[in-house]
């Protein structure tokens, strides 16, 4: 099962996941949240790759293909939705309060 090294790698990836979730919840504007979702799916790709590498089971790599495709389509679709919406850009424009 998991060695100490793989647990360390998993904790680094989990920390990256948690920091991206913080940006997803805080993000003052809509594109910040879309970008945080994109980074979350990239970290999910990394966790699946680590699981496949640690256990030698290649099944999660098929899931990784699906997540990569869905992440691209979601980001492109949400960006188009944001561009054509009537919403004014969020955020205060002040970097200290973001």
């Amino acid at each position, binding site marked *: 099962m998991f060695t100490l090294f793989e647990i360390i790698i998993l904790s680094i990836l989990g920390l990256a*996941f948690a*920091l991206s979730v913080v940006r997803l919840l805080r993000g003052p504007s809509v594109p*910040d949240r879309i970008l945080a979702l994109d980074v979350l799916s*990239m970290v999910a790709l990394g966790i699946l790759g680590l699981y496949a590498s640690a256990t030698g089971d290649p099944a999660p*790599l098929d899931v990784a293909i699906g997540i*990569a495709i869905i992440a*691209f389509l979601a980001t492109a679709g949400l960006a188009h939705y944001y561009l054509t919406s009537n919403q004014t*850009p969020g955020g205060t424009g002040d970097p200290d309060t973001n």
Partner: protein
Amino acid sequence: MAWFTQFLLLLGSISMLLAAIGLLRFPDFFTRAHAGTKAASLGAGLILLAAVLPLSGQDIAVRVWLTIFFVFLTVPVAGHLLGRAAYLKGLPQWPGKNHDEWNPPAEKENESSS
């Protein structure tokens, strides 16, 4: 070979962590997009490379190589679409920026035309 896989895993996870820290710490959306697209796709590519190296010769290896190719092909496109939408909607930009290549300041245009 095992040490090389571990090296790739470590490099990829540190790159992911740097992407997340940049996503949290940078001042405006455009600098966050810089951290969130490049570093995160590099980390995903390195970790998938670590996963595919022991699988050489199997059917799944081709699909994983295609996944790596797909990630490096689509993440910049998605980042460009998102940044273009944010720019056109007039999202607030970091006040410390010193140039804007899409919409350059007027005095620089006057200098180049005179």
